[in-house]
Every structure is written in structure tokens, then in C-alpha cells.
């Protein structure tokens, strides 16, 4: 993580010079993100420092500069280094037996380390420091003494004096960085202290992935974090899951941005300073409610002390996709369909034999096009010790690979930091504004009954229809009536549909140091989201089924106000070997939502866009809801001698979503860690870190609608309204009645998680491993419990009606190596989880989902004893070759040779629902990511691979396009089974599909495993000497290719798509494909 003190940072010195301490600080500030906080008179007496032309590392320069006295460093989370002069503890004491030892302390390259500390272990009040040349001299009491050599950023070494008088020591750099810190709930922790399952994200790596969306860039980066892309449409939000599925209710993790719950999708990835993923209960308990699905903690960039520093990042990209679904052209279509009619013994539709009078259109080609993407960001930061600023502005645009699906985003952010009262009071306000404009198409990503994918609409449009017609007013062709209605390209193009969302985030934190170690922190944050959706349809006529006789307009505005108020007290103190931190807090959150919409089905003209111009039927609608949360929480961390760590948290949450008796839920956790490598008995050259961890904790979930505990009366709408009165257009009368059951007893859903993990470091932590195993049990799961329709109630009541067990493991490894010109690092992560429903509903009911079309073709089933959303399908085991085979099989009355054979699993002589079998699910056995990055001289290279294994996908697109009874179909069907093509694995073409070959079966279930080169980037940083006198500090150019190749057996568009839902995960209904892209970009620092 960047927050830690990275000793690798290089400082360039352009000439030999002698500098004051403050001038050295300036030099460091100019070239890094670090700033310094110290009493203004601290360095007034300090000696000047000689520095040589060339490169040096930051820690060496600092040590050298500060070696004249003893300083204590403290790193603040925002990268500031607090310098406090220590009272001279290191004293030379006269001892009875004195022996002088001298020597030199160097690093592995033989470079002297000035300012390294040399102490006598038996009496740490005695010690000295190395001089400018790394030399020291110390008087020791006897030969049995042990000298302890330490240096910031290097591993400490102990040497027994014995009979030596000269001891030269080489210290190894600590690759991990001892002071590396990690974001945790309401603060930071040293990585060494962490006992919970927390991952930090390598921001530098993810910022190499050019995307507008933070979640997308997190895909494959962290073990246990699953990012599923529901659709490739620009601006669409991917689905984030931490540790698989913990509930069948809402599985979205909590996202905390700069301390305030917020929306990840509105953040410009370039603004991010750091991200942590809290995976287990002990890490998340401090967030109590809403944290049961894990927490993503994000901080944004803040200013550093120093002159204004300008960073510019810019790229342009072209995007395309090539893996099109192959649909039949006109002659192929005619051939397939004539065969289908012939096989059904039906007369063919007249258009099939009229061939050449029709067009031969490429509908898919007209629907998609290469997209252009660009992103430009500028950041300006700087400040004084007392006031720092960071301002950024960004623009992103993607024109979409599908017509009318452009997306753009303007974002800006200003973070300020004030240090008042000599650093005792810090006030840190931040404000950001984002506007997103999305054009687009509706996609059926929702659960339950599927709506129809616009892509399927395109695939199945007859090639015989012309697309364009220069003689028509709007430029699009109206099909001849015998081909049916519709021009989906025209309908999409003419539809003026825009979503304009404004998102304003404001937060301010004030931290007051009350006295030594005790801080009070106040934080207020507000998220204001205003959306405006407008959908305008001009007049058009593409046949009787695709007529819009009047221009119509529908608009919806929503307004969401959320605010959070946190008050915390934090006490952190060391007492010798004992480190204690206590956090106490209360928080309040309120979320208000209102919406107002209206529509008019006839505007006075196509040119108008205001509802007041409406002269037809109008309607208005809107919603109003509010929810609140009130919480009390505390955390105690204790660390003994950097060896034993224990942490406990409690949180009590009250939610407005439950009735008065059930408002509060109490959650707690405990975690333990043992730094075995710090034990004196542990002495291994190989193992530099060994830390087993254990945690247990409980969390709550209240992600449900408001006021569900009341006995609600449904009112109005299509379901309850009914017309009465005279005439064909009698008025519609409003109906109202209870349509749901009262559920007054609903309460918090609770998840208990146990985590066992170990961190292992080898070779001075050059090679690191981390492994976690977890089990979680969710009880009183808030689920919409299926109840019999005989109740008269068709909406399933939400009750605490389920239990779920989730188990999984995560493994990550990283390796760094560097020498002068060449350095590289590899990191990899892999994780898997499985879940089992152990209770569902009142009488262990089952859920059916994964519908391929409205109310039809369900493909998944969720029941007690199995995983959520398992595929539940007939097993197809081949194609009947002869009538004798059909007869012998005996359970498929309408089958003929060429049809699929389905297995009568239970052997009861009938093929029915009892013969369906469970066939895996859309949840992978494991998923993984591999990052490789390397630097050679001025070149850098990074590769990012990512994939899943063991998940299935139901290819609903193939199923749909294997039907000869709709309009157009897959070109695969040219190769369908026929008496002269008996080797085919595609069933015969027959109109009406009497055997129901398209029934949900294993025939359309495919292995969704894939391995993908997600990102490949090559960069070049211009050397200082070439940059010469240009007013540019740093210039890097790069080329990136994304999704360059994918290895998969999946025959559909993209195995990474359509994995979003809980019950319909892995059901491909035809989604917006992911693009490949080629990107040219630059990073510039002024």
C-alpha cells in the first residue's frame, strides 16, 4: 500500500550541493507524496547535509539528514511524516567492564547506512548511531553482550559480541516495510497488527487498468472479492460479492468512502488513494449492520505539503468485439426454415420462396460499431504544513459498441486538510461532484421473470427486412407486411433515452487531540443523488406491431439524500511492551428517497420534449421513503510485544426497518493473532514472517424495504385496478386490498463467521503468502418466503425464514525481486466458496428462477440441502438416429429421428419434471487473478490474467437461436441433423419443435470456465536527461490492450457476462458483450 513508508522511493539530486534540513524536505516533497509535520524550531540548529548528484533512496536521505539527533517518526494515514525529537535516551554509561567495539553498517550493496541505531540488547539505554559514513563505536559491558542493529526500513539484526572487536554488519531491506499500514474500520492499522481477514488493493496495479469504474478494475485483484460483470454496456455497474453468497437476500457489500457509506460507481478511479476489503466478521463488526456481505473501504487522494504538483492522465481507446453470435443470412435462413417446414409437413411461409425480392441485411452489423473511449484527468495538489489541498477533475466518455449506448462522466473532487492548534486539530473537508449521462438500452439482468434482451431481438430479426430506406422520413425501412413488423435498429436509434445522474458527496472530518493518545473525531457526510431519466419516442411506423403513432415522453426524477454522522473517541498508547487502542463511537444515518415522474402518450409534435406539450393521456407517479440507523460501537485492540495480538469489537444497531420490539441487533467479534516470527525461540533464515490468525464474529443485515413489518394494503396499479362503467373506454377504478401478509416479527438477519488464516513471509518477505479459510452461517435470513397461492397472496412475505452456510478459502502469494535495472513482481490470488441452504421458508419450500423468457423455461432451483441457484434441467444424452431408437426409449411421444433424447432419470416410463437433475451452478469452484509487472530501465510492463473455473452457464442465447419457429436463427442450424447428416450434434430443424428440443436441458448448459488476459500494458518513462529543461517532472507513455485473449469452451458471447444475480447466476439471456480495446495513454507530472 502506498500509505506505508516506501523505502524504495527514489530521490533524484541534480547536482552536488549542501542543503539545510528543510531544503531536503522540500526536495522529498517535490518528488514524492510525503509531507512533514514538525515543530517549526526543530531544525533551526541542525547541520547542513551534503548530497551528491544522482539518485538516492528516500530513507537514506532522511537518515542522513536527521542523523545529528534522535527523532521519532510517526506516519499518518495521509502520508505525512510526523517528526518528534526524542529526549536523548541513548546515553553512554560507564560500566565496570568496558570493551570498545567498532564497525560499519551497510546495506546489501555495501552502501554505508548513516544514522543506524546500535543498542546493547541487555541494556537498551546504552547505544549509539552510525555516522555519515556508517561507522560506529560503542562501549560494551562484556563479551556476552548482544548488539542490536536497526535502521528504518531494514530488518533488525542481532550480533553476539564474543571475542570480536570489529563488527561489520550488513542489514537487509525489509521488503514488506515494517510500517505499512492498512485501512480498517474507522482508522488504520499497521499491517503487522492485523488479525482479521483484510486485503489491501494494490492501487498502482488497478490504476493501470483503464476503466471508468472502480469495481471493474477490482476484478481478480483480491482473493475473496468477486466482481461479476452483468453486462458490458458502458456505465453499467458490475456486481461485487465478497466471499461468495452469504444470504439469498441482498448480497451487496457495504462501501465506505472517506468514512461515509457511499456509491462506488460514482468515483473516478484516478481519485482513489487506497482500498481495503474487509472480508471477515472481525474486520467488519465495527460497521455492524450492512457489513455482513463484507466492506469495501475507499479513501480518496489528499494534498501533500509542497509546491503545486500537477498530474495529468489521459488516454484514448478504440473498442470492438469480434466474437459475434453467428446468425443466418437470407439464403441460409431460407434453407433452414424450408427444411423445418418440410420436416413438420407444413407448407412453408410464402416469403421463403420469394428470395431475391427481399433484402439480405446484417442487423447485427447495423446494431454494433467500434466504440471510442477517452478519459482525461487532471490533479493539482500541494499546500503548506497547515493547509493542504488536492483538486481533481476528470472526463470519461465511451460511445458504446451498440448504437445509442453512449456514456460519459464528468467528475471533480476537492479535498482539503487544515492543521490547526499546532497540529492538535485537523479539519478535513472533501467535496465531490459527478455527473453521469447514460444513453442506452434496457437489459434483462433482473431476477424473476426475464424480459427480452434487445440483443435477442436483433439476432432474430429477419435478414429479409431492409434496415434503411432513404425515402422514408426517418431514414429507416418499414418491412413489408408479410415479414412482420419491426425495425429494431430504427426503433433503438429513434428512441431518445437518457439518464442524467448528479451525485454530490460532501464530508468533513475533524480530529482533535485531547491529550496524549486520545483523539476525538467528528465526521459528517452527505450523499445527494439526483437522477433524471427521460424517454422520448418520436412518431414512427415499422408495421402494425411497431407503431408509435404519437410522439410520447416519459420522465422520472429521483432524489436521494443520505447523511451520516459519526462521533468517535480513539485512544492509542504504548506502555512498554503493551500497545493498546480503544475506539468508542456512536453514529446516525438517515436515508431519504423521493421520486416524481410523469408521462404523456402524445406530444403535440416530434420536436417537443416537454411534458406540458402533451395533449394525450398523461400520468404521474412517485415514491417517498425514509430509513434510519442508529449505532453504538466499540473496539479494543491489544498487542503484547509485537507478538500477541487480540482485538474485540461490539456494535449495537437500531434500524427503522423493524418494529419497535425488534429494532436493535447486537453484534460482536473477537480476533487473535500470533507473530511467531517475533518470538525469540523462532530463528529461521528462510521464514521472515509467520503469523497465524483466528477470528469469530457476528454481523447483521437489514437490506430490505422500509416498513415491511406493517400490515400493508396494496393500492392501485394494474394488479388491483379494474374498469367499470359504460363504453369501450370506461374509467379505471382504483382497487385496494391486502396483497401481502403482515410480518410484524421480522428482525435482523445475522451472520456468524469464523476465519482461520496465516500470513507467511519468506526470504525477508520477498515472497509472501496468505491463506484464509472461513465458514459463515447466516441465520434468520431475510427471505421472501414462498407461500402457497391458495393463501390468495401472490407476493411472498419477507420473513426471517432461511438459514445458509457458506464456506470458502482464499490464497494469495506475491514475489518481488529487484536489482539495479530490472525489477519485477508477481502476485496471484485464488479463492473459492460453496454455500448450502439449510432452511428455507416455512416448510422448506423451493425457489424456481433463471427464466429464459417471461414466465417460461426456468433453469434454476434453490432448495434446502443444496447450493443457491443450482441448474435444474433435463439431461439430454444425444440425438435419436432411428425411429427404432425413439420407440425403444418410449418416453418421448412426439420425437422423431434427429430429435434430442432426454433421460428418464427415475425410470418411471414417463418424462416429466421428476426427471430433472441438478447440474452445478453459476458459482465457480474457484476464481483467480495473476498480476505480473516488471520494470527494466525506463520501460515497464504489466500483465493481468484473470479467470474462473468450474462454473456453468446456461446458454439461453443459443437455446433461443436454435428455434426455427421464431424469426431468424443461428447459422449453426445449417449443420443440423438430417438423414444425410447423421453425425451432427444439432437436432433436426423442425417447425413447431414437437419434441420440445428447446426445453431447459443439459444440451444448452456449458462449462463457463475461462482464462483471460484482461490487461496488457507497456509503458515508457522518459529519462530525466532527455526531458532536459522542459517544465515536466515526469512523462510516461503507455499502450494497453484489454481482453486480448480468452481461453474458454463457452460458445456464447462472453463467459464473464451474466453472472450477476443470486438465483439466475450463470443464465445467459443475451447481454451487451464485453469489448476488446486498444489504448494509448500518457501520465504527466508537472
Amino acid at each position, binding site marked *: 500500500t502506498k500509505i506505508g513508508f516506501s523505502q524504495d522511493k527514489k530521490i533524484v539530486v541534480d547536482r552536488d550541493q549542501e542543503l539545510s534540513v528543510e531544503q531536503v524536505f522540500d526536495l522529498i516533497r517535490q518528488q514524492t507524496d510525503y509531507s512533514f509535520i514538525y515543530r517549526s524550531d526543530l531544525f533551526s540548529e541542525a547541520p547542513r547535509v551534503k548530497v551528491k548528484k544522482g539518485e538516492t533512496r528516500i530513507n537514506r536521505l532522511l537518515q542522513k539528514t536527521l542523523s545529528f539527533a534522535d527523532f521519532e517518526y510517526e506516519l499518518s494515514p495521509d502520508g505525512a511524516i510526523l517528526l518528534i525529537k526524542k529526549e536523548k535516551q541513548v546515553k553512554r554509561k560507564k560500566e565496570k567492564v568496558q570493551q570498545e567495539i567498532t564497525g560499519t553498517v551497510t546495506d546489501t550493496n555495501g552502501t554505508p547506512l548513516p544514522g543506524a541505531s546500535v543498542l546493547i540488547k541487555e541494556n537498551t539505554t546504552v547505544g549509539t548511531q552510525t555516522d555519515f559514513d556508517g561507522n560506529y563505536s560503542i562501549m560494551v559491558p562484556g563479551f556476552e553482550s548482544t548488539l542490536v542493529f536497526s535502521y528504518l526500513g531494514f530488518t533488525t539484526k542481532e550480533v553476539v559480541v564474543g571475542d570480536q572487536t570489529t563488527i561489520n554488519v550488513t542489514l537487509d531491506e525489509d521488503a514488506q516495510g515494517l510500517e505499512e499500514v492498512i485501512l480498517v474500520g474507522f482508522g488504520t492499522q499497521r499491517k503487522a497488527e492485523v488479525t482479521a481477514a483484510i486485503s489491501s488493493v494494490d492501487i498502482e496495479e488497478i490504476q493501470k487498468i483503464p476503466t471508468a469504474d472502480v469495481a471493474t478494475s477490482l476484478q481478480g485483484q483480491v482473493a475473496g472479492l468477486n466482481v461479476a460483470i452483468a453486462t458490458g454496456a458502458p456505465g453499467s455497474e458490475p456486481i461485487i460479492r465478497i466471499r461468495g453468497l452469504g444470504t439469498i437476500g441482498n448480497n451487496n457489500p457495504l462501501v465506505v468512502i472517506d468514512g461515509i457509506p457511499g456509491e462506488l460507481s460514482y468515483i473516478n478511479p484516478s481519485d482513489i488513494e487506497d482500498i481495503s476489503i474487509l472480508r471477515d466478521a472481525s474486520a467488519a463488526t465495527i460497521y455492524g449492520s450492512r457489513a455482513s456481505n463484507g466492506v469495501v473501504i475507499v479513501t480518496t487522494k489528499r494534498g501533500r505539503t509542497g509546491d503545486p504538483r500537477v498530474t495529468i492522465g489521459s488516454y484514448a481507446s478504440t473498442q470492438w468485439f469480434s466474437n459475434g453470435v453467428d446468425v443466418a443470412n437470407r439464403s441460409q435462413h431460407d434453407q433452414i426454415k424450408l427444411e423445418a417446414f418440410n420436416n*413438420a409437413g407444413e407448407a412453408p*411461409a*410464402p416469403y421463403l420462396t420469394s428470395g431475391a425480392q427481399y433484402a439480405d441485411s446484417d442487423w447485427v452489423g447495423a446494431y454494433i460499431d467500434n466504440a471510442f473511449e477517452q478519459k482525461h484527468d487532471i490533479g493539482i495538489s500541494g499546500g503548506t504544513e497547515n493547509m493542504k489541498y488536492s483538486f481533481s477533475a476528470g472526463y470519461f466518455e465511451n460511445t458504446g459498441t451498440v448504437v445509442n449506448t453512449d456514456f460519459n462522466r464528468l467528475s471533480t473532487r476537492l479535498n482539503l486538510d487544515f492543521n490547526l492548534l499546532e497540529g492538535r486539530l485537523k479539519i478535513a473537508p472533501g467535496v465531490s461532484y459527478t455527473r453521469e449521462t447514460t444513453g442506452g438500452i434496457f437489459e434483462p439482468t433482473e431476477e424473476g421473470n426475464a424480459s427480452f434482451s434487445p440483443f435477442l431481438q436483433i439476432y432474430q430479426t429477419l435478414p429479409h427486412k431492409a434496415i434503411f430506406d432513404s425515402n422514408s422520413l426517418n431514414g429507416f425501412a418499414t418491412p413489408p407486411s408479410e415479414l412482420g413488423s419491426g425495425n429494431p435498429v430504427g426503433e433503438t436509434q429513434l428512441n431518445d433515452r437518457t439518464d442524467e445522474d448528479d451525485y454530490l458527496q460532501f464530508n468533513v472530518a475533524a480530529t482533535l487531540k485531547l491529550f496524549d493518545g486520545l483523539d476525538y473525531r467528528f465526521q459528517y457526510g452527505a450523499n445527494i443523488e439526483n437522477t433524471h431519466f427521460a424517454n422520448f419516442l418520436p412518431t414512427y411506423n415499422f408495421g*402494425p*406491431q411497431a*407503431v408509435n*403513432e404519437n410522439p410520447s415522453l416519459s420522465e422520472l426524477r429521483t432524489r436521494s439524500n443520505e447523511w451520516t454522522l459519526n462521533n468517535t473517541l480513539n485512544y492509542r498508547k504504548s506502555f512498554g511492551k503493551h500497545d493498546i487502542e480503544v475506539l468508542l463511537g456512536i453514529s446516525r444515518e438517515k436515508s431519504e428517497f423521493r421520486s416524481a415522474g410523469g408521462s404523456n*402518450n402524445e406530444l403535440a409534435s416530434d420536436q417537443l420534449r416537454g411534458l406540458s406539450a402533451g395533449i394525450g*393521456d*398523461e400520468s404521474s407517479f412517485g415514491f*417517498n421513503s*425514509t430509513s*434510519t440507523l*442508529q449505532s453504538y460501537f466499540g473496539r479494543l485492540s491489544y498487542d503484547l510485544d509485537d507478538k500477541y495480538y487480540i482485538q474485540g469489537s461490539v456494535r449495537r444497531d*437500531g*434500524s427503522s426497518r423493524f418494529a419497535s420490539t425488534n*429494532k436493535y441487533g447486537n453484534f460482536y467479534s473477537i480476533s487473535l493473532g500470533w507473530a511467531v516470527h517475533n518470538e525469540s525461540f523462532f530463528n529461521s533464515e528462510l521464514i521472515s514472517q509467520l503469523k497465524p490468525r483466528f477470528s469469530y464474529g457476528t454481523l447483521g443485515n437489514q437490506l430490505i424495504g*422500509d*416498513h415491511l413489518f*406493517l*400490515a400493508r*394494503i396494496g*393500492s392501485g*396499479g394494474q*394488479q*388491483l*385496478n*379494474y*374498469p*367499470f*362503467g359504460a*363504453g*369501450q373506454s*370506461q*374509467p*379505471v*377504478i*382504483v*382497487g*385496494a*386490498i*391486502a396483497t401481502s*401478509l403482515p410480518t410484524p416479527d421480522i428482525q435482523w438477519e445475522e451472520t456468524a463467521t469464523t476465519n482461520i488464516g496465516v500470513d507467511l513471509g519468506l526470504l525477508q518477505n520477498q515472497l509472501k503468502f496468505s491463506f484464509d479459510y472461513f465458514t459463515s452461517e447466516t441465520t434468520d435470513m431475510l427471505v421472501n418466503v414462498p407461500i*402457497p*397461492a*391458495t393463501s*390468495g397472496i*401472490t407476493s411472498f412475505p419477507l420473513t426471517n425464514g432461511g438459514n445458509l452456510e457458506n464456506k470458502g478459502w482464499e490464497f494469495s502469494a506475491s514475489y518481488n525481486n529487484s536489482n539495479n535495472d530490472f525489477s519485477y513482481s508477481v502476485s496471484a490470488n485464488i479463492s473459492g466458496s460453496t454455500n448450502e441452504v439449510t432452511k428455507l*421458508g*416455512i*416448510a422448506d*419450500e423451493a425457489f424456481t428462477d433463471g427464466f429464459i*423468457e417471461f414466465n*417460461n423455461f426456468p433453469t434454476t432451483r434453490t432448495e434446502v440441502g443444496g447450493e443457491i441457484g443450482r441448474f435444474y434441467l433435463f439431461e439430454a444424452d444425444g440425438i435419436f438416429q432411428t425411429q427404432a431408437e425413439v420407440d425403444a426409449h418410449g418416453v418421448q411421444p*412426439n420425437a422423431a429421428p434427429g430429435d434430442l433424447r432426454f433421460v428418464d432419470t427415475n425410470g418411471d416410463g414417463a418424462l*416429466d*419434471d421428476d426427471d430433472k437433475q441438478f447440474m452445478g451452478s453459476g458459482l465457480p469452484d474457484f476464481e483467480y487473478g495473476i498480476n505480473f509487472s516488471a520494470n527494466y530501465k525506463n520501460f515497464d510492463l504489466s500483465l493481468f490474467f484473470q479467470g474462473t473455473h468450474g462454473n456453468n452457464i446456461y446458454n439461453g442465447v443459443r437455446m433461443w437461436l436454435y428455434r426455427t*419457429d*421464431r424469426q431468424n436463427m443461428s447459422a449453426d442450424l445449417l449443420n443440423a441433423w438430417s438423414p444425410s447428416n447423421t453425425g451432427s450434434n444439432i437436432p433436426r430443424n423442425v417447425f*413447431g419443435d414437437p419434441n420440445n428440443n428447446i426445453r431447459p436441458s443439459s444440451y444448452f448448459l456449458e462449462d463457463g470456465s475461462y482464462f483471460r488476459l484482461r490487461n496488457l500494458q507497456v509503458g515508457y518513462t522518459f529519462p530525466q536527461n532527455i526531458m532536459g529543461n522542459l517544465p515536466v517532472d515526469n512523462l510516461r507513455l503507455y499502450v494497453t490492450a484489454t481482453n486480448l485473449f480468452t481461453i474458454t469452451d463457452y460458445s456464447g458471447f462472453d463467459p464473464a457476462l451474466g453472472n450477476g444475480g443470486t438465483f439466475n447466476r450463470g443464465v445467459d439471456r443475451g447481454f451487451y458483450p464485453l469489448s476488446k480495446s486498444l489504448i494509448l495513454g500518457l501520465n504527466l507530472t508537472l
Partner: protein
Amino acid sequence: DDFIEVENREVLTESSFWQTEDHALQALTATYAALHSSSGSKWAFFEEIYTAMAYKADEMVNNTAETYSRSLASFTNTTEESGPFNIWRSAYAGIGRANQILLQVPNMEALSQESKDVIMAEAKFLRAYYYFWLVTGFENVPLVTSYEVDPDNLFPNQVTPAEIWAQIETDLTEAEGAMLVEHSGEWLGRATQGAAKALLGKAYLFQEKWAQAETKLAEVLAMDYALLENYEDNFNGSAENGSESVFEIQFTGDRSNGNDERQVFNFEVSPYAFGGWELFYPSQWLVDEMRTDLNTEGDPSDRVYASIFFDDPGSEMYSRDIDDNVAYTDAAGDLNHPKYFKKYSFNEDTNFYNGTNISIIRFADVLLMYAEALNENGKTDEAIIEINKVRERGGAVPLAAMSQSDLRTQIRHHERPVELSMEFGIRWFDLYRWQRGSTATESIKTTLEDHGKPFAENFQDKHILYPIPLQEININENLDQNPGW
């Protein structure tokens, strides 16, 4: 803790409802609304409920390119078939709402006893009608007559069909006395006394209670109903809730304030070439039978021309594509299929869907049911008089005298299918009751085979009933599947 007490500003609740007469009427309206399916969706009504009720019959063939109820039509459906589930779910949604009214309305202070009686009577009528769907479709269904909110009471067992029939008779008998003879003005379309009598008569018919059927249906004849002069007016919207209407499902073209309570029949039956969807067609048997329904000139009767679009010089149909009627002879080259239904195909709205009501019981049906009861009661000559009223209105020559058994066949395989072809919930359930009754002359399978029903060879006895929906059995383990499924 006031902070986490948030006032409900979103939704009406039990404590603010059931206060005024308007509330009671809103609840009643919602009970009617289940006639459009439990979701109120016009698509669920037509593509699920209507097709599931119609597709097993001999009078129609489905467009095999469409999956809706396709496997019901070919007798290859499984227990998961969505159409029967939608019938089940919608019927019980309506029953549950009626039960709420019967639970709450008696305690409401704001209503006069008279208002309460009328509202509760209509609730009972609707409950009986929904049970009619269930008992004729599934036979073995739970009897739910109270509104339950305790989850433990939501898992009923099935009862015998006789118990359901008894409940239907009780509800209708109680309802009939309290219901209004007519609703007018803004409430036109609500069920009336005549509807209750006619439905009760129909229920007797289904149970072969011929004498009670005759008596009850005679009471309807004595009321103010009359056949429309023009047969076609029953389907083109010009005589909605008119003199021939006993009970209709109301639809409307009104689109104000986001309403959409339209029906889609015209779209579903029209040829592709006219811009329609052609979900189903008349069967060849029906067309052949209709060709024998002649007027005095020896041409097909008016009711035939109003019912089907077929290869005949006098046949024409409305085309959305050109917004006018087209003669069969002019359209034949573009047609995908040789014959089409045309009832309800008249266009009234821009998007093809319109507000034309769908008849549940019309007076012609009452006359034919009455005639059937008379015939079974040995009054064949009187029966022929009633049938001839219907034939003459439809432009067909009157029937001459015939034997009781010939008239039985005439009613079963000519008069009812020709007069009532394709109308909601008629033909299949006629076949069902004739098969189930003591007067059965042949099995349904034989009828289907004789009438050339595609896939009739797949028909087994289990297909007489719908399977209990798998979706429901999955939830309620107290339910037993129907025999054979």
C-alpha cells in the same frame, strides 16, 4: 430512539384501511381485478389463462411456433406448465380477496347494511366463479373460505369436488338474493342477480342437476335479457354490458394516469400479414362444421362470417396494416395459414389492443344451457324452440324436430361450438362435463380424434384435468397430485 422510529409515508396499511365505503368498494374492485389474472397483466390473462383453458379443445389449433400453452395443446405438458398455475394462482387471489371482504366488511361502521349486503354478495359471487375455474380445471383443490395471516394456516389439504360444488351453490344461492338486478352508470359491469342465477344454472348443469338447472335458468329467461339483433355486436364493443350480456370481464381503452387494462385478443388472432400475432387458429373441424351452418340462401350464416376468416368469397377481416377490412380472396397470397378466428379482431386502439370486454356468460349461452337442460329433462321440442332463437338471430335456418339424443349431439358438436366458438372458458369445459357426466356418449379422446385434433394420440385420461401446479406442490406438501400426473 425517536430517531429510528420513521413514520410510514409510503403505503396504506390495515390500520388506515377498511374505514369508509370507498375502501369497501376498492376492495371489491380488487376482487374483480383478479379476473385479469393475479398480476393484472393482460398478457398473463391471454397468453396463459385463456390459452390454457382453450388449447385442449377440438375447436382450435395453436400456432406451433409459439410456446404459450403449446405443450398443453399437444398433451405433452408437465406439472410445471405455467398456464394452469396462472389459473390456480389467479383464482385463489380472487378467492382470498373475497375472503378479506367477507371478514372485514361486516365490521365496518361506515356502511349501511344494504351496501354491505350488496358488496358481500358480489364477493360471494366472485368466490363461486373462481372456484368454478378451479373445480372444473383441477377438481381436487383446497377449499379456502377465510382469510388467514398466520403462516401455519397457509397449507391446506384438498377436499372433494363435491365439497367445492357445494360451496359454489351456497355462495351463489346466498349471493343471488342480495345482488342488484342491474348496476348502472359508473358501476356498470359489476355482477348482477342474473349473473348469479346463470352461473348457478351452469353449476347445476355441470353436476347434471337437470331439473334445478332448468328452473334456475328459466329465472334468467324471465329477466330483462335479450339477444342482440346483430351477432357480431357481441364482439366489436358496440354492445358492451348490453342486453345480451349476463357477465363480462371488463376491459378498457382508457390510458389515463398510466392505466392499462386493455385486452389483446385482436392482436393475438390477426394474421401476421395484417400485423397480428396469430397465436391460434380455428380447427379444420370447426371450419367444416361452420360451413354447414347455413342461412336460407344456402350460404354460411352471419354468425359464421362473424366468427372466422376463411376461404370463402363472403369472408373478410379487419387489417390493422391498412386500417380497413380485407376480403379473403385479396389476402390469401400473403396469409401464413388458411383460416383465422375473427371474433374480437376489431380494432379500436393504436397499438392493436383495445377496451372490448370479454364475455363470460351471454344470454345466447343461457338459452343454449336452458335448452340442454330441457332436452335432458325430456322436453326436446321446447329445447329446439330455445335453440332456434339463437340460430335465427345468427342468421341460420331453424332446426327441425329431432330426437333427444340427436339434439344432444347437435348441441354438443354444432350449436354450442358454432355459436360460442373460441369464447372464454366454454368449449373445453363443455367437453369436460359431457365426458364426466352420465350422458357421456364417447370419451374426450374419441371426440378429439374424430375432430382431427393434432396430437390427439397423446391424450391420456390424466389430460382431462390440469396437473396440480408443481410450483404449488413444491410449497405445500399437503397437496396430492392429480391422478396420472
